[in-house]
């Protein structure tokens, strides 16, 4: 089907552009690695002496949070690249071809997913010398979740970029969303520590369930309800992200 062929063409073109400047792929890794080295060691004692934390050692609690954070924020900024392409006239040039408009979105999202998987794998490997121990199956499932999460947020970011069309506007939106998402998802500290009102508030945030799910995967609890809810929340986010992205890319004047 031509849709897959077109998606592949857009994917390969985008990936080439990323590979040409690999430094960005690793600059994006700097932040989680700094959290790992400069913040992670503080947690070890905290985890040992704090009741109410989910089971697992400090790294099994902390690294999943970093992975989810990478999945969200690594992808959330891709809209800036799209604005640059829009301004250069590339989006319009591709829109006058017979190619399916959704292929223009999905090809780019796939590139972001690949980049994210490389970053997430590096982050996981770097965590091992710090003391991370986790079952391989759980880690692989967690990477799948990160990939899907990246697809959802990349798609939303592209849609936002295409609608807003300026870096300033996109930056404002991302800044406005980043802090509540970060604080209400238990990425840094698990929400099991939260007072009741905060826990209930965070329960509404699907990302909190994703983080809890990924933590369960890192413990090897693949059959647990927490893992299930995490996967469900991830799939729901992907559905919403792709729906919004697809609708925006199909719109005529976008």
């Amino acid at each position, binding site marked *: 089907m031509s849709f897959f062929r*077109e998606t592949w063409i*857009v994917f*390969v073109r985008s990936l*080439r*552009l990323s590979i040409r400047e690999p430094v960005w792929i690793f600059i994006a890794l700097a932040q989680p690695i700094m959290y790992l080295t400069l913040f992670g060691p503080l947690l070890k004692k905290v985890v040992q002496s704090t009741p109410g934390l989910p089971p697992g050692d400090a790294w099994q609690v902390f690294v999943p949070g970093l992975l989810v954070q990478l999945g969200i924020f690594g992808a959330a900024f891709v809209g800036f690249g799209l604005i640059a392409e829009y301004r250069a*006239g*590339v989006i319009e*040039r591709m829109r*006058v*071809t017979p190619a399916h408009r959704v292929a223009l979105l999905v090809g780019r999202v796939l590139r972001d997913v690949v980049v994210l998987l490389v970053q997430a794998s590096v982050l996981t490997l770097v965590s091992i010398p710090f003391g991370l121990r986790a079952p391989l199956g759980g880690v692989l499932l967690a990477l799948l979740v990160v990939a899907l999460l990246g697809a959802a947020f990349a798609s939303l970011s592209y849609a936002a970029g295409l609608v807003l069309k300026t870096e300033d506007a996109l930056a404002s939106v991302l800044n406005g969303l980043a802090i509540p998402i970060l604080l209400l998802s238990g990425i840094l500290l698990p929400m099991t520590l939260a007072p009741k009102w905060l826990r209930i508030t965070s329960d509404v945030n699907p990302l909190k369930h994703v983080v809890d799910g990924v933590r369960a995967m890192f413990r090897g609890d693949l059959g647990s309800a927490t893992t299930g809810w995490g996967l469900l929340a991830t799939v729901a986010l992907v559905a919403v992200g792709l729906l919004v992205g697809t609708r925006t890319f199909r719109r005529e004047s976008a």
Partner: protein
Amino acid sequence: MINARELSRTFRTRSGPVEAVRGVDLDVAPGEIFGFLGPNGAGKTTTLRMLTTLLVPTAGEATVAGCDLRRDPVGVRRRIGYVAQGGASLPQAQAGEEVTAQARLYGISRAEAEARGRDLFSRLDLEGLWNRTCQSLSGGQRRRLDIVLGLVHSPQLIFLDEPTTGLDPQSRANLWQHISRLRDEGATVFLTTHYLDEADSLCDRISVIDHGVIVASGTPEELKRQVSGDAVVLTLEDPARSADAAALGAVLDGADEPVIDGAQVLVRVPHGAAVLPHLLRDLDSKRVALTSVEVRRPTLDDVFLSLTGRSLRDEPAA
């Protein structure tokens, strides 16, 4: 190649609807270079974006390259090429890779895409730039790359939106040659411009759009003939005598109301050269001294001025 009837587009804005294009009729024959002229904001680009399927018309019908604009936009896209005003290449991308990817989006195989791209590179004087990044190209080279991107699938109909804006005179002349050659090879070219010399020397036929409606159509010659006669331009030594000179001009056979601009007096007459001896004798007898006399055949700028009340040349950038 293009038949448009009553094509219209209204934009909804916060301050109410804006009718950018109000019932445009266009007929472009196969194999011609068609010029679409108008000041900024006249509706040129909106019309172009409708004809290239980027905007859906709010009213009207059009057939473009044999396909119905509303019912078969993908068919239109397959058959047309579009070179946008603002360019189409990403600074950090490699020129050749962009061209190959673009061709492949039209369903062309990888090998064929590269062959066509390299052929176009050599025809548009871009040889040796295949592996360069777009940002390392000069302005003229980058514009020609935009054109390669719009031609790589060999469209029957090519839309060029302000193709030479921002280019130096040499690059412009060079691009004109390439555009003429497209027509000679059988393609149809639809171009917008606000350079009248460009329209005059390049286009077989022209339509002028202003405030969203077509105000004139025809060959450049036909349009120029619509402006009655030649302009006789007198430049006086003493600007204070311009009223006297204008009075003498006004009584010439078939003369329009003379226009005074400082030391210059412009009067439009059917045959400029024929009235000149008589006029000069009269001026001399009234002791109105001249520094120069010029008889100007009508230009497209005159056409534009008489049609829209504005000069394209003096128009501030919108």
